[in-house]
């Protein structure tokens, strides 16, 4: 379903993603793990048509995201690392907007919105503005929205960041359920190793833009002679702390807090 060969992305002198190759067969739950700044989000952006690769090849369901942008976009749903809801709109309006953008027929849109909002426990509050929602509710809404147009693939970029264990559990059990029932391919990133261990069939570990290991959780543990995935992860990526440069985005956030817009 996802086919990546020698994918490279350079920003000036910095190589964010360095000749990465992997395949994700249809119906698999695939985890993409790595420390901060390892190139996870950059890879996802290239897979989802948001960023042009410097070189290499990508196929999503047999299509090149650069040449068949809209066909590829129709095939996946995505939950971004950063919030991407319109917080001045209600949950229902966010779903409506998504459905209209993806040209889901009105009747089907309503049915699926109701089904998904109910499944994620948001139906009772569908008419409330999203700014009144907690972090967990927003996340659930984003997942629900990403599934509205029945995509073949769902990308989840750190979907459980900052959520309580209850919400995390519920989210993953729903994702697993969906994977089993509808055969949707799942591509996820997370910093919670036990989640990746529990949910995913195979795991790729990326560091400094390169894939350093790829296999089942069991294989990674055996390869590194460690008992847990977390230890295996640390053995593969080292224990040095990673600092990401403060971006324009961080500065904007600080500014927005001042402006309260």
């Amino acid at each position, binding site marked *: 379903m996802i086919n990546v060969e020698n994918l490279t992305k350079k920003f000036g002198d910095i190589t964010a993603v360095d000749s990465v190759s992997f395949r994700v067969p249809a119906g698999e739950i695939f985890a993409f793990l790595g420390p901060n700044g390892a190139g996870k989000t950059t890879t996802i952006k290239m897979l989802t048509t948001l960023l042009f690769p410097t070189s290499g090849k990508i196929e999503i369901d047999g299509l090149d995201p650069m040449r068949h942008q809209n*066909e590829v976009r129709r095939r996946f749903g995505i939950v971004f690392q950063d919030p991407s*809801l319109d917080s*001045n709109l209600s949950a229902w309006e966010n779903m*409506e*907007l998504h459905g209209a953008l993806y040209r889901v027929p009105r009747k089907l849109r309503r049915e699926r919105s109701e089904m998904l909002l109910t499944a994620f426990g948001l139906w009772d509050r569908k008419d409330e503005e999203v700014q009144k929602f907690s972090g967990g509710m927003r996340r659930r809404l984003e997942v629900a929205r990403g599934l509205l147009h029945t995509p073949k693939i769902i990308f989840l970029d750190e979907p459980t960041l900052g959520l309580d264990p209850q919400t995390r559990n519920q989210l993953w059990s729903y994702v697993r359920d969906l994977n089993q029932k509808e055969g949707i391919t799942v591509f996820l990133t997370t910093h919670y190793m036990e989640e990746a261990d529990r949910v995913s069939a195979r795991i790729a570990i990326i560091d400094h833009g390169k894939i350093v290991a790829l296999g089942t959780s069991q294989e990674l543990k055996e390869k590194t002679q460690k008992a847990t995935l977390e230890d295996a992860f640390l053995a593969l990526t080292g224990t040095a702390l990673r600092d990401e440069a403060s971006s*324009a985005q961080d500065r*904007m*956030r600080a500014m*927005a807090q001042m402006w309260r817009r």
Partner: protein
Amino acid sequence: MSAIYILWLRELRRYTRSRVQIIASLGQPLLYLIALGFGLGAVFRQAGRGSYIQFVAPGVIAMTVLFSATFSGIALLWDRQFGFLKETLVAPVPRAYIMLGRTLGAATSSTIQGLLVATVCVIAGFRPADWTLVPLGIAFLVLIAVVFAGLGTMIGSMLKDMQGFQMVMNFLVMPLFFLSGALFPLDGLPGPMKVATHLDPLAYGVDGLRSTLIAQTFFGYALDVAVLAPLAAVFIGLGAWRFSKIQV
């Protein structure tokens, strides 16, 4: 088409929900109208040019639309940093449609804002010379709104953060306003000022409003339309092009 409509609707919903902001943004035009209208009224009358309130009201209305439209266009910057933009960028819709929906929504909400200020002007004592020409004046308002919403979106697609925004504010939006003749008559200006005012698109907007609302014109109604209408198309075209190049 449904994409354009839904994004237009989104902008409008956001506008109508920000009641505090709507009221707050009436403050500045009101200040110009009252402080300048009454403050300079006597001098203006002595110079034999009639009522300053009558003269400045179309300028203040145009100013409202300029600010409101440019800012709603630039609000793209917020969406870009706080994520919602990405949701539209991964949607299977040509980017131009997304830009068009947003821009038309921004233009619509700024037109409404302009009409609100116009109402306030009437309450403050402003009277159109000929009420039958008011619909034409509104058409001008829409034209101004589209021009500057297009410009705002174009700029918003190019900026990365708030520092750029300050630059745009000080070196583009404020000069556009002050050189437009919103506050003073354009005749009898010294050479460089004359050139600058002739290059300011808002000058044609203000002039169009004056010609329809108070039967005074500097460029002439036909020239105003002939400048603004193509400019609206150019800004929307350039904006759509810049927007389609966004990578996040």
